[in-house]
């Protein structure tokens, strides 16, 4: 899931804290994820992107991504790597 970035923030879904749960049962994977905001304009892109990324992993036969809103995402869910990436990204732009 680190392959899928939020294009606005330039940070992947995992480091953004959008992945809530991953359940692996043999070749089947179910992921529960959220978005930064319910009106997120990247809704379709990120969900489909996550599904595509899972589907490209050898060994996975079926992958399902479920969008959940509880608990609502908040910026405190970004992990330290995500925060570092944001700072590094900004330094690169100077």
């Amino acid at each position: 899931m680190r392959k899928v970035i939020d294009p606005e923030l330039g940070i992947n879904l995992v480091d953004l804290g959008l992945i809530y749960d991953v359940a692996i049962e043999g070749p089947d994977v179910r992921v529960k994820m959220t978005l930064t905001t319910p009106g997120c304009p990247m809704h379709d892109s990120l969900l489909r992107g996550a599904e595509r990324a899972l589907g490209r992993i050898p060994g996975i036969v079926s992958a399902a991504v479920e969008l959940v809103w509880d608990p609502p995402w908040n910026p405190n869910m970004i992990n330290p790597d995500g925060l570092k990436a944001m700072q590094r990204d900004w330094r690169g732009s100077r």
Partner: protein
Amino acid sequence: MATRPASGGSAPRAAAPGLRPGLGPSIWVPLRYLATAQAAFLLAVTAAPFYAEGLADHYYLSHTFAFTHLLTLGWISMTIMGAAYQLVPVALDAQLYSERLARWQYWPMVLGVIGIVAHFWMGHFNGMAWSAGLVLVAVLLFTWNLGATLWRMPRWGIVAKHVAAAVAFFLATALVGNLMALDKVLGFWKGEVLNILHAHVHLAALGWVTMIIFGVAYRLIPMFSLAPDPDERMPNRQFWTFTAGVAGLYPTILLGSRLQVLFALVTAAGIGLFVHQVARIARARKKPVLDWGVRTALTALGYLVVLVPVGLAFAAGLIPEGEFASRLAFAYGFLGLVGWVSLTIIGMMHKIVPFLVWFHRYSDLVGKEPVPALHQLYSEVWQRRGYWLLHAGILGTAAGLLAASPWILRGGLAVLAAAAWIFGFNMLAIYRHLRRPLTLSHTLSPAGGVGVRGLIKGFSKTGESDNGNRSRDHREPGPRGVEEGHRSGAGDQPRGPGPHL
């Protein structure tokens, strides 16, 4: 190994309350407005240095009105219309009433703006009145479309209230503008011409433009700065205060009433409450450093804050009539139009246009191959240079207006034109992705994007980015897929804890 790209039917998707994909219109609807608006802006700022002598004169001149309407209708209103068609469905989480109306509305708007500007320039007021009628048709279609969108919403939040009020004030401005245009032909309006003009300007600048900027900001600033959405109590107070102030300002300025100072104070209080809210959002943000687009929009707010005491002084009659008052009024209008509004728009265009283009060009590639981040579609280096040039040009032009000096004006306007062209090149760099997307063979740099240099080089497929970095992210997923190590598109992002998928 049989893998199934899981975009098919088995993926259960729990839609959020009210969240439906594809709420917005086709990309080409907002883009045609935005691209036309940017062309109008470039035309105005490129031609302005050649009209420096006229701008050193009184502002009540037909040629000056041509420039003003090219900016207010061609640049600002066209931009807001395009951005509204893109952002209102996102910000309100509601389906746009009619994409077809939005497409139809473009033509009377463009023809009307061309007609108004050309006839003001030629001093032909019959043609100007007809053209104003075309703009009114476009505004009616816009009002119908957004009005119907709002009407179907079960509840109006703070963004919807601002949008509704802004559209109502826009319609009022267009109606008044048409009456003013007809008066130029028929001469029926018995009133002080400068009062009529000042009332019209404030209705448009505060009621239409500032109102919609305030409303959309409540959605976009938290989104772009990673801050929680503000509690609606204070924004609601701000909305009603500001709306009451603007609604009272128009008739009192029109009639030259002393009550205008009261409504100017109420309007100023509304602006103060908004600034307070923005400061709270900025303090609560999680994003460590704001990008240049948001920073541009936020510093534009500084110009609005500076203009408030000037407006209050005019309303209170503290500035004696005469040459200085006329120069100050001209600089006040210019700083409102360019310092506050245009700077806000330029900042937001670096967010909205990349999103539109990215969504159209790269959305389907997410998860398949590396795609650029939004800020990699243009040059942030040139954006930053343009930011400082914009401030220099705005302040230089305002100084020239105050001093009534054609030379200072010409210098300030030339710097402003240079900054505007940097903005234009960056927009062009973004639009180029529509025809030639970055692919695996292209360079993605952490920050530089393809930008102006890429544009000038003709976007060489093997070209380097602004800072000369070659991508480290352009590898097809290997046999071990993501484990091969495609990291964040923003660069070398180390892995953190979490499921290794």
